[in-house]
């Protein structure tokens, strides 16, 4: 098994990886073949334009790498569920939207495999934390 040097998750637009930031500086410092990543990412996300599709890149000590596509960022799913354009800039005071517990559970299920949570309750707590940070409330 090759030794892992770092793991980098890029939250970027599907089909639009190119050497500009954040992709260029985030990957170039690890000495990996940037264009090969961009081409492969764009090919694999071609059908999902308009969405942010995170890629988790595992970089090995010998300079090789591989990557996996992940579920959309929690914040993206929360924005869609609450039908808001963006999160609150003052989340502790200014609430921008509300989602139901049902919606929270749906998002937790979508994100479950990427969260390392022990169970669905744990995943829901993590997502509720992200929601609070965005000024999105969860109905009691």
């Amino acid at each position: 098994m090759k030794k892992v040097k770092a793991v980098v998750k890029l939250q970027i637009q599907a089909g639009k990886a190119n050497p500009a930031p954040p992709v260029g500086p985030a990957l170039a410092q690890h000495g990996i073949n940037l264009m090969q990543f961009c081409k492969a990412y764009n090919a694999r996300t071609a059908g999902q334009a308009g969405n942010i599709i995170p890629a988790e890149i595992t970089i090995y000590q010998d300079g090789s790498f591989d990557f996996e596509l992940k579920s959309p960022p929690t914040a993206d799913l929360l924005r869609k569920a609450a039908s808001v354009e963006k999160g609150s800039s003052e989340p502790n005071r200014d609430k921008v939207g509300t989602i139901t517990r049902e919606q929270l559970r749906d998002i937790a299920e979508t994100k479950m495999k990427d969260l390392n949570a022990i169970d669905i309750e744990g995943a829901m707590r993590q997502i509720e934390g992200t929601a609070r940070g965005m000024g999105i409330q969860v109905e009691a």
Partner: protein
Amino acid sequence: MRWLEVSVEVDAEAAEAVAEVLSRYVERGVAIEAGPDGWHAGPVVVRAYLPDDDERWARRKQIQEGLWHLGQIVRIPEPSFRSVAEEDWTEAWKKRLRVLRVGAHIVIQPSWLDYEHEAGDVVIRLDPGMAFGTGLHPTTQMCLVALEELVRPGMEVVDLGTGSGILAIAAAKLGARDVLAVDSDPQAARVARSNVIGNGVQGTVRIKRGSLSDVAGTYDLLVVNILAKVIVELVEQGLCERMRRGAFFVGAGITSDRTPEVIAAFKSKGLEILDQRQQDDWVTLLAKRP
């Protein structure tokens, strides 16, 4: 052009929330980086990049405010800011690579570097990419040395778990008549195919996406650079039956603590252990079917 890099070191749990705040001020997305042990094994760094222009102070202030508000809910350390010069990031990775000599005659040459050939050199042209086997790892190097010692002109060779195809290409260039290179990963099979063509050995090396069941017939040499567990499984599934009398087995990717299992598996199939070599924590076994 210059960029302003914002970075915030946080717990993995807070990373998404921080990424969300930063992504409001950048158009092109954010990067989250974890160390060798992955997420949840210590802090991660969230980074985003803004144009470093006349608006920089206003942007910095917006980000600091956004993070301050988030900080009222979860603990967020101060962000750091750094100006980064735009460079040709596509070329940066090439700077670290050199022409590499392995064993007595094998030379691994990145495609964009010139190099003075010496008589007897076996040159493999290879650029690191999305497949294992760049020539920089001890297991790959030990396999190359073993192939240099064992491959004789006319041999028929199998490379299981070929990755970038480096070992199959080496076997072909060392004189093998036929090399079957197999990998279960479609990405590796594509990379290997392109490297085989780049080295002009497509007449000798056949790339197959598959596993042991795709290896028919018997051979003079098997090279398997994967993992101890996988080698043991392959041996149990009948890999050694693909060996002719007098054939060699080069097994690698074995950590020192797992070596006895592989030796036991080899012996259970009547193989004779010729040598056990170690570099760092990696062991390579050379075995022979009597």
